[in-house]
């Protein structure tokens, strides 16, 4: 009970702290970046006429573009900047000690900050994807927004867990490690057409994206534009990917909590002992 109360206290306290000018500016930039980019594209590039091959291509490129930017860039950047330094910021600010000497203090801070990272980024992702779809005006905007919102939610929850774990394991050069992880694992590794890519968050999100867009269904899956997505069709169900993603998230958080419980930080220099 105390641990839940602690998580709730951290969540409320950190949310209140987040209403600072720099953080609000950052949130606004994050939210407005995809709609602004798509708006410029709309202004500069003419939309292909209906029934042309260009129009068919747009049916794929618009959802892909929104997915790359909203559940991808916006969510990753948002949770990266919140969750990765969750512990190191307290250590560097020498405020960790006040939290660590409370019952379940370390766990409360970890999980509370994880939730703040996810919920702070969530509205940015939701608004950015809705505005992007509105600007790009695809054939079925309702479906695309619904798919994007589900992906944004999953992306925030799972990436926040990844960066939380990174922040606990690497208390030095945390942000650099986080960036390396994104580049090498979530970008390069997830692209490799082998079993190894199934260990990435991106792979699961792409599988769900392809399925929720219905691109694995006959009629779409045989279109030339759908060929690059064959790797994400697979035999597994949506629920399997969803379960894997949420299971991985829970496992990452449990690992982070256990590792943090074992780590020892001194008060003098606030460095790992």
């Amino acid at each position, binding site marked *: 009970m105390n641990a839940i*109360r602690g998580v709730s206290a951290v969540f409320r306290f950190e949310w209140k702290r987040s209403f*600072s000018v720099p953080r609000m500016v950052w949130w606004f930039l994050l939210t407005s970046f995809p709609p602004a980019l798509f708006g410029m594209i709309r202004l500069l590039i003419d939309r292909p006429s209906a029934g042309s091959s260009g129009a068919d291509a747009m049916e794929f490129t618009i959802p892909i573009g929104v997915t790359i930017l909203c559940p991808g860039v916006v969510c990753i950047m948002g949770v990266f900047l919140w969750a990765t330094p969750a512990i190191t910021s307290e250590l560097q600010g020498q405020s960790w000690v006040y939290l660590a000497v409370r019952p379940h203090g370390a766990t409360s801070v970890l999980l509370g900050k994880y939730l703040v990272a996810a919920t702070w980024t969530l509205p940015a992702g939701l608004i950015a994807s809705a505005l992007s779809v509105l600007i790009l005006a695809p054939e079925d905007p309702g479906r695309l927004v619904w798919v994007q919102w589900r992906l944004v939610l999953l992306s925030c929850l799972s990436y926040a867990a990844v960066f939380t774990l990174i922040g606990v394991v690497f208390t030095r050069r945390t942000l650099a490690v986080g960036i390396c992880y994104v580049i090498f694992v979530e970008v390069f590794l997830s692209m490799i057409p082998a079993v190894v890519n199934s260990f990435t968050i991106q792979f699961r999100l792409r599988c769900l994206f392809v399925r929720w867009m219905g691109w694995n269904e006959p009629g779409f899956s045989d279109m030339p534009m759908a060929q690059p997505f064959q790797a994400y069709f697979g035999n597994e169900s949506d629920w399997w990917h969803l379960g894997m993603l949420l299971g991985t998230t829970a496992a990452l958080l449990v690992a982070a909590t256990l590792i943090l419980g074992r780590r020892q930080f001194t*008060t003098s220099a606030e460095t790992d002992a």
Partner: protein
Amino acid sequence: MTPLIELNSITRLYGTVIGVNDITLTLPPGAYGLLGPNGAGKSTLLNLMTGQLSPTLGTVQVLGHAPRNNPKYLSRIGYLPASEGLYSNVSAIDWVSYLVELQGFGRRGARTIASESLERVGMTEHMHRNIAEYSRGMRQRTRLAQAIAHRPEFLILDEPFNGLDPIARHQMTELLRRWIEEGHSLILASHVLHEIESITRSFLLVCGGRLLASGSIEDIDELLADVPSEMRIRTGTPHELASVLMQEELVDRAEIGEDGAVVVATRTAVRVYQFLTDSAAAGRFEVTEIHSSDESLQGVFDSLMKLHRGEL
């Protein structure tokens, strides 16, 4: 009665560096001063007591609990660390309420408790302002408020007087005295003797990671009774003074320092002081300065370290 602190042959290593070296100690509930120069191992000891560190060897029990990762134990202690670590963009009431909530209290209850605690340290008037606007003394009082807010049984304070002006020091001293009078236990780490002396008469002296002595100031004086103390005496006639002090058998050793001062080692410092006063009054020697290096805490520690090593 459950001992307040029970340390059983504890050693804490930081890689190859020894933080605390083979300390065994049992203390009943009460107020204690943990005294030692900077780097003596005080903070390491406190970190072991607050459960932030676990000993490399040995066992730690405080209030009958092993402190590390022990929520039950942590709900019974209050801790004021040496490092400041305050959020600048938060008010004292928000910060203390937050920490009280982490202690397991409900939201409203925590707010009330935090408010009472801030009132206790004289911060009511300023508690809604951002901490960034506080003076050093106000920040220190706010830090103390978070440590005592949840009414812990045992208060652990690491250098609580750091950076305080004389008035704030006096206020802090009064507050801690009241805390002790109310029957609570505390341990207070400092490298300044008189800061601790003003609060408690029970000391633990640590140096080089070792516990050199424990007890009252009288116990420590007794321990050092046969230890020669060093004095530097500045006079216009150093050779004559040194010679007389040796002839009178007032000192064990006398030499002339590089700065021309007479440096003596004596087991009867009071007699030397008396002799010098009488001589000056009689116009026999003109003494311009007397400095006893052992008056400083470092001198006491040096002597105790030598005693500990069997060099005295």
